[in-house]
Every structure is written in structure tokens, then in C-alpha cells.
């Protein structure tokens, strides 16, 4: 083979290599994705809780919530003034004090519970009570007391009389053990009649005996201890305790907030909802819990939790949020917070709701809890739970 043939062969092989490198096959298969946006089915709804203000996005798919924590004294009994009837108070009769009634008005007061009874005998000791379930607050309680407005009427028939009338409270756990109590003698007499008029007694509570976040039964007790002796007649007695209010109030040690920070509502479909804590910042020591509750108030999610400014849990469990009747809301985002005086906490959150496995949506939510400046002033206990018109100058 001469040089010319070698030259041509070399060139031919070179071109073959180039063709081998560049020749291939590409297949193109098309697809179209049509995006048809819709108005949001799930929206934020502001909370009307005291101390809460909200700023919602234009389409209510984002929110910033500002909460003012407060150290104001608060009542934890329900219907402590008996203005809404006897519920939820339950009567436990004694042997002699065995009549219990609620009156819309009695002895010049409105909403009054009367515990009464009578009998005969020489040595008589008896106790009756009304009780309801309370939940001891999760925050640190600085002080607490039971405040009772009472009126005692009694008729004692005997020649020799020694009578003590007592009133107070007993707090029992769910196993019916007395956790703490305070019952005081308010009348000690040898007279045949007792008519105290309306009085108020304030009884402090040993808060160290109670566990935060625990349910107890608060009993308002009335007791009698009588010695009735007569030479000629059968000793007898009649007694009535009228109660205008019996309330348990607590004063937080630090500024606190409890209640719904914001609500959510859905109108067309049910979704699984959860909240994720992306980041947080604190000023001072902070305890915060955030969880979800649906509109039936019977189901709670697990909580996002910060204790002593340290993250314990960064996500709630999922809860079902469903459409509800008009006038109701599908879901509450609840917060319990206790912050150091002058402190604050900012929570940067994502609310995530999904429909089964196919689609989910994420909304941003920011919650800021502060101890407001210039808080000052005295703690006030409100004895009236409804507006009272001011007397006008004539």
C-alpha cells in the first residue's frame, strides 16, 4: 500500500470517528400543565380575646398577631356570681342542711343560691356544699383566694345554746382527696336567732398544694356545730345560708395569656391542619404552648412548646378542620404563654393544611407576645360580670 492510500484511509477513518461521536437520537414527548388558580377555601379569622390584635393579609391567607400578656387577676370559676342560674354548681346535701335552691333574687340580691335545712337534737354537726370542676392554671400563680358573699339566717330553740356557723372551701382531686381547704367560723353565738346580713369573706389558697394544668373540684362548704339543750321542749333549729357569689381568683406571678390567638375557617372541604414553628426569638424567660382545637372543643392537637426559652417541640400534630354552621368557626389556634416582666416572644410559624395525599397549602403566621409597657396600676377584681349603667347627674 503506497503513501497515498494510507493518507486517504487515515482521512476516511477520521471522519468515521467524528460521525460516530455526534450521531444519536433524541425523543421529545410533550406535556401541558394548565394552572387555574382558585380563591382560598381556608382563611384566617381574627380572635376577639382580650389583649389580642391581628393584621391579616388582603386575602386572609397570612396573619400577624400581637398579644399583650397581663398579670391581671382572673377568675377561674364558671358562673361564680350565679347570674346564669345554678349551673355548673352541684349540690351535696348534708343530713340536716338538705335543701338547695337557686333564686333569681333573694334578700335584695340577684342570682342567689340558698342552702337550708333544720332538725332536732342536742349535739348537731353537719356540712353541705356546692361544687364545680376547675382547672388550675398552667402558668405560675402568685396568689389565689376564694371570695364568698354570704347571708346566714338561723332560728335556734333551746334553753342552752352554743352554736358555730362556718363557711369556706375544700379543693379535692379527682380521687376525692382533699388537697387544700380553708373553713372559718363566721358566727359563734348563744342567741336564739342569727341574722348576719350580707357579708364577704376572702380565704387565701395554699397554691403550692395545687399542680398546674390539673383538674380539681372546688367545694364551697357550709357547716354548723350546735349544742342545744332544753329542760322543757325538744331542741330544734332552722338554718339558711344564702350565697350571692363564690369565686376563685388567681393572680399570675408573671404576665400571662391564655386563649385563642387566631381562628381558621373552611367553607367547602375538610382538611388536615398542623402548625410548624420555623423560628422564634425571646426577650427574657418565656414559656409558650401553642396547639389546635376544632370547633367541637373536644379534640386538641399536640402542642408546640417552649420552656424557659428552650424549644421542646416544634410542630403540632394534625387535626381535622371541617366546615361548620354559620356563626361558628372551624378551628382555634390556642396559646398559653407566661413571660418575664418586660419580656417578649416572637413565633414565626407555618400553618399547613392538606387534602388527603394529593395537595397541601402553607400560610405564614407570626405571633408576638409582649408584656406591654407602662402596665402599672393595681390588680382589680371585678365583682360584676355585666355592664352597669352609670348614675347620671340630674
Amino acid at each position, binding site marked *: 500500500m503506497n503513501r497515498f492510500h494510507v493518507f486517504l484511509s487515515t482521512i476516511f477513518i477520521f471522519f468515521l470517528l467524528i460521525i460516530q461521536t455526534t450521531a444519536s437520537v433524541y425523543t421529545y*414527548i410533550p406535556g401541558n400543565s*394548565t*394552572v*387555574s388558580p*382558585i*380563591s*382560598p377555601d381556608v382563611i384566617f379569622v381574627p380572635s376577639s380575646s382580650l389583649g389580642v390584635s391581628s393584621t391579616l393579609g388582603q386575602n386572609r391567607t397570612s396573619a400577624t398577631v400581637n398579644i399583650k400578656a397581663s398579670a391581671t387577676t382572673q377568675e377561674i370559676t364558671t358562673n361564680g356570681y350565679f347570674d346564669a342560674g345554678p349551673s355548673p354548681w352541684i349540690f351535696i346535701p348534708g343530713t340536716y342542711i338538705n335543701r338547695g335552691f337557686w333564686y333569681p333574687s333573694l334578700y335584695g340580691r340577684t342570682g342567689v343560691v340558698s342552702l337550708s335545712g333544720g332538725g332536732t337534737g342536742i349535739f348537731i354537726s353537719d356540712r353541705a356544699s356546692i361544687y364545680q370542676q376547675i382547672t388550675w392554671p398552667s402558668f405560675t400563680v402568685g396568689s389565689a383566694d376564694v371570695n364568698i358573699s354570704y347571708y346566714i339566717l338561723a332560728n335556734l330553740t333551746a334553753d342552752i345554746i352554743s352554736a358555730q356557723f362556718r363557711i369556706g372551701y375544700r379543693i379535692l382531686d379527682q380521687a376525692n382527696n382533699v388537697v387544700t381547704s380553708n373553713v372559718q367560723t363566721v358566727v359563734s353565738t348563744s342567741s336564739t336567732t342569727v341574722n348576719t346580713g350580707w357579708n364577704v369573706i376572702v380565704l387565701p389558697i395554699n397554691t403550692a398544694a395545687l399542680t398546674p394544668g390539673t383538674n380539681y373540684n372546688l367545694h364551697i362548704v357550709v357547716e354548723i356545730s350546735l349544742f342545744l339543750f332544753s329542760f322543757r321542749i325538744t331542741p330544734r333549729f332552722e338554718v339558711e345560708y344564702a350565697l350571692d357569689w363564690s369565686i376563685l381568683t388567681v393572680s399570675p406571678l408573671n404576665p400571662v395569656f391564655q386563649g385563642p390567638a387566631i381562628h381558621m375557617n373552611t367553607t367547602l*372541604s375538610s382538611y388536615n391542619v398542623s402548625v410548624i414553628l420555623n423560628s422564634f426569638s425571646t426577650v427574657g424567660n418565656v414559656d409558650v404552648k401553642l396547639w389546635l382545637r376544632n370547633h367541637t372543643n373536644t379534640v386538641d392537637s399536640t402542642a408546640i412548646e417552649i420552656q424557659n426559652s428552650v424549644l421542646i417541640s416544634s410542630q403540632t400534630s394534625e387535626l381535622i378542620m371541617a366546615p361548620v354552621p354559620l356563626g361558628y368557626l372551624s378551628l382555634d389556634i390556642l396559646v398559653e404563654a407566661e413571660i418575664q416582666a418586660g419580656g417578649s416572644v416572637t413565633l414565626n410559624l407555618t400553618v399547613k393544611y392538606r387534602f*388527603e395525599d394529593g395537595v397541601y*397549602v402553607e400560610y405564614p403566621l407570626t405571633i408576638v407576645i409582649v408584656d406591654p409597657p407602662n402596665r402599672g396600676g393595681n390588680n382589680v377584681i371585678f365583682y360584676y360580670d355585666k355592664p352597669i349603667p352609670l348614675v347620671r347627674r340630674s
Partner: protein
Amino acid sequence: MRSSRLITILAILALFGLVGTAVFVYLPGNITVSPVAPPVYFANGSNANQAGLAGNTMTVSLGANQSSFNVTLQPTYQKTYFHDILRIVNPAAPAGDNYFFAIKVITPLGAPYTQARMLIYDNANNLVLSVDLKTAGVQGWPTSLPDNTQYRVDFEFILPEGVTLPASATIQVELVYSPQNAVTPP
């Protein structure tokens, strides 16, 4: 003598180049086209044609030979994520055929969306390709699509709050695949 022969041949070739159209030579050839079943095709995801937000259906329709797809999704404000809507399949048969693929965005999604993505995952839930559906062009070349593989396709959209709800818009894409990965497809 040999060099003179070479010079003669080269001179003749040069003359042909100079003269141009003086002579035409026709060399015959045959191209046989033998179509095959598509080795890579689309399939419905587990949430195809299922209910989505507010009772709307996330519709998926495939071409007769699963070589095209049409998807309709209904996002709302903020971030909406659609899970397992579509699949990309390289079946077990024929065995041993491995491919590389990419997504070519032909008609991207415009404003007011701030983000639109096609997210492709393997069986182990590893993200193998994220396609920006707001940007035109070939993305992700070459992404491996081994034999006997089925990838899951999700979609994600971010529609900022406060804008007027936009009208429906269609994103056109092509999945381009090849047995080789040396050269980016056109």
C-alpha cells in the same frame, strides 16, 4: 512519478470545485423507518384525577400511547404543593435500556406567580430534578433514567397574596430523552 499522479488527481478535483455546477453526481441510498413502542412514557400518579382544594379535581389525561400529557391544577394564594400527579416510566422491558432525560420548557409560566416548579423524585423519595417552570429552555440534562424506573412528578406554585386572582395559564413542556448523554439536546 507517484507524486505527479497525486498532483494530477488533486488538480482535477480542484477543477471540479472551480467549475461548480458543471456536473451532478447522484449517489442512491435507502432509509428504512421501523417505529418502536415508546421506551419512555408517562403514567398517572396516585393522585391523578383525585379531588384537590375546594372540591376541584386535579385532572390528568394521557395521550393514546402515553407519549403526551395534559394536567390541570388549581392552586390558591401562598404556596400550593401537588403531590404525585404524574409518573415518568422506563419499564423493565426491554431489559438493560438506560436513558438520560431533561425537561424542555417551551412556554413558561409568567407573573404574578413568583415560583412554579416541577419536582421529580425517584422511588426512594430523592429529588432527581427540579425544573423551573418560569424559565424557558432545557433543564436538567443529563438526568439518569435507568432501566425499570418510575419517577414521581410533583408540582409547586407560589401565588403572592394581594394580587388579583389570575386567569388560567398553560405551561408547555417537552420531556426529551436519549440513550446517550454526551451532547445536550437541541
